[in-house]
């Protein structure tokens, strides 16, 4: 029974490693978007820009609730915590001019939307990126 805790520790470490993998911003490979700057990503996810550079209507996708990737994404991109982001959107709730990114419950749902919508844009763990997606911005670890 001795090796079991070690194995468990190894697996956990591996899990954490994979959990803490690089975040990247991806789009549908057929969207025509090649690369985005940090400012463009911010503008898209914070409602300032509604269209991609190629003219497609942008559909930013957020991971639901307090998903670790969501926290990491906003912290890395904007240097802000989720309550601040929520407060930001709360201010805009009644104005109706800008709306928050669409919420996806799981990574699988994010992938599904990305695969099926040309203008979709989302952040994902680099390991989940497949050929149907294109990395347009690297958020970092």
């Amino acid at each position, binding site marked *: 029974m001795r090796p079991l805790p070690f194995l468990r520790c190894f697996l956990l470490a591996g899990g954490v490693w994979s959990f803490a993998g690089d975040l990247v911003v991806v789009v549908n490979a057929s969207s025509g978007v090649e690369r985005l700057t940090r*400012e463009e990503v911010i503008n898209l996810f*914070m*409602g300032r820009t509604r269209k991609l550079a190629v003219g497609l209507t942008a559909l930013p996708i957020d991971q639901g609730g307090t998903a670790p990737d969501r926290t990491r994404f906003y912290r890395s991109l*904007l240097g802000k915590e989720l309550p601040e982001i929520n407060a930001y959107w709360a*201010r*805009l709730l009644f*104005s109706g001019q*800008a709306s928050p990114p669409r919420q996806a419950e799981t990574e699988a749902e994010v992938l599904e939307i990305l695969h099926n919508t040309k203008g979709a844009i989302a952040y994902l763990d680099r390991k989940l990126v497949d050929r149907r997606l294109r990395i347009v911005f690297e958020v970092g670890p």
Partner: protein
Amino acid sequence: MRSPFRTQIAFRTTALILLVTILVGIPLLFLLAARVRRQESSRQQATLAQLVDTVERTAQIACFLGDARLSEELGAGLLKNEIVGQVVIQAGDRVLISRSREGWVEGAAARVSRELHSPFDPSLVVGRLSLAPDEAEIERQTARQGRSIMLLLAFQALVLAGVTVGVVLLLVTRPISRLSHRLHRLQAETGENLPFIRGHEGDEIGRLVEDVNALIGRLVTFIHAERFLRDEVEHERAELQSAKEELEQSLAEVKTLQGLLPICAWCKKIRDDEGLWTQIEHYVSSNTDARFTHGLCPECAKAQIEEFRKKWQEPSS
């Protein structure tokens, strides 16, 4: 009827205090009004800055998104504050809102403007929020506070005047009035002293009573001295009168002959003023009170007797 201003210290004091209060109060009021205006203006500037602080985050978001509706709501909210005259929010060159209070006119008061940065990138300027103060509100506040100050000053002046009247009546007029009544009844020539007013023994009124009593003392001394001197003068005058009368009587009784009398060297007759030669006895009796009684001195008697004898003997021879 004489004016109370001339006859009553309390009235005069009150009138002077009110006059001074008014004369000092009016320029003071203007100074205070200017000060209140400055303070109100500064307060408005501070309040506007606070308002900008309060809405800055939302305004940043509105400018970041170019959200005119959010800007409208923001502007409407800001204009609910009475001191805000105009709200302007610009996202770059685009004016998201420029809204003024009804009847607002741009004045000299400085606007409070602030550059708005992106909520996600402090180095990126996304717009500008500008608030203009409502100067009419400043004037209203200034007038309101000016009125309050004026009422306070008036109230203060009235209270001060009332207190002054009371104090002057109690501490000055009434004791002086009592003193005056006592002085009128006082028989100073008899040496009667003025009694002290109770409670004023040690103050100026007490000193005045002391001075009056000292004067009465000196007056009595002078009266006595004057009476003594008058008696002396009367006595002297009587003596003089008596001496004069005696002298006049003596003079009346004495007749003297003065000057040169022309007298005959032989018969001893005297020539009078009319040029007549009269006997010396007659002349002296006429011009003096002297009277003559005749006699013979021994020599003349001897000579006359000898002559008489010779005459007696001659016929017989």
